[in-house]
């Protein structure tokens, strides 16, 4: 398993993901700072709370692009027969890709919220409560986005091409605005991480909403698409 994971990491060398991840890390930071510098005087945590929906949208886009690319590149470069003849099962290969994507998401979310906290400390001084709030937000965000990884993988496995799978996600992404701002927005699984993390950060639109239905929908999505992805991979085997 470790060798496979190592291999997956090595395959990332020289790909555009090495650029995409830093860009995804920097964009929220820059946009929040621009708002802080230009808008009416508001504290940085307030601006972050107000922009939390968009910060999460950027992260979701990054996970989708990375996921679709990592899965479909095996088809594009005709690597699947070579992977099939190795003594590792295809399901194990799939799990390695899941772990890789989850690690990327986890590091990225912690880095984004960590950087936002550092900027806040520089501007407003250290605040322990905000440190805990941002740390928990980063972990929650990584967990919630991680629940969508099997769904992304399944669609990439089903379509077998980056263009095909990304069209589906582009259409889903179009639903982000304005369904994210509606009370029933969490019926779309891809909006749940956006809504729940924004709620945790204190976004006023979501104060009436509970965590329960969203977490249930995410758990259901995770379970259903994990099963479908494994079944799809076993069929290929």
């Amino acid at each position, binding site marked *: 398993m470790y060798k496979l994971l190592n291999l997956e990491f090595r395959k990332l060398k020289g790909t*555009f993901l090495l650029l*995409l991840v830093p*860009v995804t890390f920097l*964009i929220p930071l820059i*946009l929040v700072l*621009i*708002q802080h510098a*230009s*808008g009416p005087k508001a504290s940085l945590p307030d601006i972050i709370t107000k*922009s939390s929906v*968009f910060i999460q*949208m*950027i992260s979701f*886009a990054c996970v989708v*692009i990375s996921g679709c*690319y990592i899965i479909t590149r095996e088809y*594009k470069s005709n690597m699947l027969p070579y992977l099939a003849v190795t003594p590792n099962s295809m399901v194990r290969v799939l799990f390695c890709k899941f772990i890789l994507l989850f690690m990327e998401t986890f590091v990225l979310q912690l880095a984004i919220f960590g950087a936002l906290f550092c900027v806040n400390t520089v501007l407003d001084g250290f605040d322990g409560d905000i440190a805990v709030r941002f740390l928990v937000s980063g972990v929650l965000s990584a967990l919630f986005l991680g629940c969508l990884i099997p769904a992304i993988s399944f669609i990439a496995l089903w379509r077998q091409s*980056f*263009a*095909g799978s*990304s*069209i589906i996600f*582009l*259409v889903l*992404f*179009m*639903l982000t*605005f*304005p*369904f994210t701002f*509606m009370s029933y927005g969490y019926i779309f699984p891809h909006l749940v991480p956006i809504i729940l993390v924004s709620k945790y950060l204190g976004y006023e639109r979501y104060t009436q909403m509970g965590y329960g239905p969203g977490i249930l929908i995410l758990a259901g999505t995770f379970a259903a698409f994990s099963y479908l992805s494994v079944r799809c991979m076993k069929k290929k085997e």
Partner: protein
Amino acid sequence: MLRLMEAEIKKLHASKMWWLLAAGAVLPALITSLSFLEDRNISWLIFMHVALLIFNVQSLLIFSSFAAFLRAREYEENMLEVILCYPYPKRNFLFSKLVVMLLAIGITVILFGMCTLLSGSILLKASLPPSLFRHFIKILLLVSLMHFLLSPAAFFLAGLTHMAVSGVIYGIAGMCLCMMLYSTDFIQFIPMCIPFVLTDHILGMDVMKILPDYGIHWSILAVWPALFLFADAKKQENIYSRNQ
């Protein structure tokens, strides 16, 4: 030239990208209707304002993705060497893709306009004033032009990275810029946000404070594609001279 355009359209014929354009045309009207399902007393102006806002934000993603897929598929399917063998000036290939892009934008905007008017007439109690209808048509023409002027950047990025994903990232960045910076004054100077800001102002809504003279916005929109077309031409020249 016509043959090249025909080839481009034939290449797109079997592609699933048309579904993306269809979704881009239908979804804004549908989402607007769903938003106002419980409040049918709103005016046509508000309905069009919301529909245009959603359309302009989503179109950044749709058109840049479409442009990038149009441009990058030659690289992704290793067709560039074959295409360079054809006895056409190299600039004609890009020009034909731009014409196809203009057609795609035009068709999407027309479909969007039809969907908005149809859903509005079903949903709203008030009837559409003829002057607003004419104004809406004028705005749709301007929207087509503005989005077309933004597309060379996506073409250039796809040509530079040889991957369609760059256009998708460009579109998502544009969407996020529009939504995150809408309360700031300088959103009007960001090329990708100009259709979003200007359309709203031309429609008569004063939600975003912008300069009353549109000269600066149109100048930015004119310089933006010129810059990327020039960079693209330079890059193509380099590829061609290297191949020779």
